[in-house]
């Protein structure tokens, strides 16, 4: 992919996504404009059916828009085929899911190695990078544990390590704290904030929990397939701040 470093990381222009045809057609996105620059931390919020998941899938190159344009570092993702989208995900994007989505019966370190395997990184270097990445998320002591031997918070850390192991441009997090209790959620949000602050990683996070969105620097509200509001977060919290008030 030819990238343009001057261009915004993500630029959606009048993006629409229609499922089905004719009478039964569902218009999940109805002309969305969204530009996200390098180093931003954006929370995407909105009720279910608002189009936020569809937007996330399109940004993540898992889905393609039916209208409008999507440029990633200046490259027109709309014209990408399946293979090019796979390479975009491999080289520029890291995914974190609500359900962790780690490979079962596979040690943490091997889960983290996975994207590096697909990138063709050699065995020794791969292992070293995976270990270093797990240390970055504070799991240097749990390398050989399989997902079933890890707590939910630890599993999500492994997932984050896997997402950032290949040094992606953007971290895409889809309800990363949805399956965690409050204390664990806070830990995960602090970790993501730290990656954003200290390493300049661009983060886009879908959440419906306002407490979690508080960690973002910018909040985008979706409603009925359109962006309803897009504003900086006034009360930016740092990872080292007190825990937010949670009930």
């Amino acid at each position, binding site marked *: 992919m030819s990238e343009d470093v001057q261009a915004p990381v993500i630029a959606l222009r009048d993006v629409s996504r229609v499922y089905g045809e004719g009478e039964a057609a569902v218009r999940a996105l109805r002309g969305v404009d969204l530009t996200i620059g390098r180093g931003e931390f954006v929370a995407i919020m909105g009720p279910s059916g608002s189009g936020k998941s569809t937007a996330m899938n399109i940004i993540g190159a898992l889905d393609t828009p039916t209208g409008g344009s999507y440029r990633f570092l200046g490259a027109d993702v709309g014209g990408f085929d399946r293979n090019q989208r796979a390479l975009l995900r491999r080289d520029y994007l890291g*995914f974190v899911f609500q359900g962790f989505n780690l490979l079962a019966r596979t040690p943490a370190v091997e889960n983290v190695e996975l994207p590096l395997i697909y990138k063709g990184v050699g065995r020794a270097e791969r292992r070293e990078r995976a270990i270093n990445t797990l240390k970055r998320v504070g799991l240097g002591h749990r390398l050989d544990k399989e997902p079933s031997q890890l707590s939910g918070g630890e599993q999500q850390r492994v997932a984050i390590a896997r*997402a950032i192991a290949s040094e992606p441009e953007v971290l895409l997090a889809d309800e990363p704290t949805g399956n965690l209790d409050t204390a664990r959620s806070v830990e995960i949000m602090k970790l993501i904030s730290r990656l954003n602050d200290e390493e300049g990683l661009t983060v886009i996070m879908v959440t419906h929990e306002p407490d979690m969105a508080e960690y973002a620097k910018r909040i985008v509200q979706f409603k009925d397939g359109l962006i309803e509001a897009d504003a900086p977060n006034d009360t930016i919290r740092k990872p080292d701040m007190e825990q937010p008030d949670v009930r």
Partner: protein
Amino acid sequence: MFAETVRQALQAILRNAMRSFLTILGVIIGVAAVITMVTIGRGSSDKIEADVSKLGTNLLIIRRGAGMGPPSAGRSAPSFTLKDVEAIKAQIPGVLAAAPSNTSSVTLIYGNENHQTTVTGTDNDFLIARDWDIALGREFFSSEVSGGKTVCILGATARRKLFGGGDPVDQTLRTEKFSCKVIGVLEAKGASSFGQDQDDTVLMPIKAFMRRIAGDQDVSSIYVAARPGASTDKVKSDIDALLRERRRIEPGEEDNFSVMDTKEIASMLTSVTGVMTGLLSAVAGVSLLVGGIGIMNIMLVSVTERTREIGIRLAIGATERQVLTQFLVEAIVLSLIGGLIGIGLGLVLGYVGSNYMRIPFSPDWTITIIAFVFSAFIGIVFGFFPARRAARLDPIEALRHE
């Protein structure tokens, strides 16, 4: 990258060791069956060739009926007579010995022992033609042959069954209809082709056989030995001409008897084992095919079961080709493991079977390599469809899959 894919495939296979084993059971059985059949078939052929070459290159066997079919095929053709045997011996220069041979299954009784065996009615020429020595006692006196006296020469097995370690010479055996004095014992010859025990036999003069057992004057086959140095082909064609004349076969009419030399006997016998081996291998091949379908079935189940995993792999950047390769390699590695186990098992079974049947262990390495390559081929063919299905999954759908 490829070594990496194979390593991952092995991991995935070992993660589900039990299921993997059951998956490849069909391939294991198929390959093992093919290898066993071919090994035993080849051993039998080798054994037959060795046996027949032991008969000597100068032996001819004359049988009723044209061609080389089973003995029953000759039933309709007229049998030979003792005069035919005499004529062959007297009129054809290259003939060293010509012996009539009629056989029948008879139960012999001695003391408390009774034993069912094959009784052959013949004369001393039979011993020359078959190159068979007397171990104990003597052969027939000519008076016994011409007078049709009921005297017997025992094969080694018949002797052991009836007399154990005792000396049978001059003892009298009984059958339902007559009794028979033992005059000698034959050298042990061992098992023939098809594992038949040649020593389980009893010889008696042909005329005694005709009177006491057969009840007619027919001779069913004739054993002829050519003189050393005489051309077997010449003797063969002489016999052919003589018998055509004696049996009044018009020129142009087909023979109603056959004269076979040892080479023909060998090829007849090996062609039978060849057909058997081919047939059994074909059945085994079908089970290989079924084994392949088993692999496809399990791979399809595996793809469905691992839909989520595939979704994860696709989401983190695996290309379609990489996922396809992963599942294809998994199927190939699986069926190759099955092929290897099958080859090992087949060789072991072939070895055990060969020992049991007392034939040489003679594995066919070409077939072994073919079986190995074929099992890889099965992996490719039956792994491709499930692998393609995995590679073409929609990552969003796959990730949603529970």
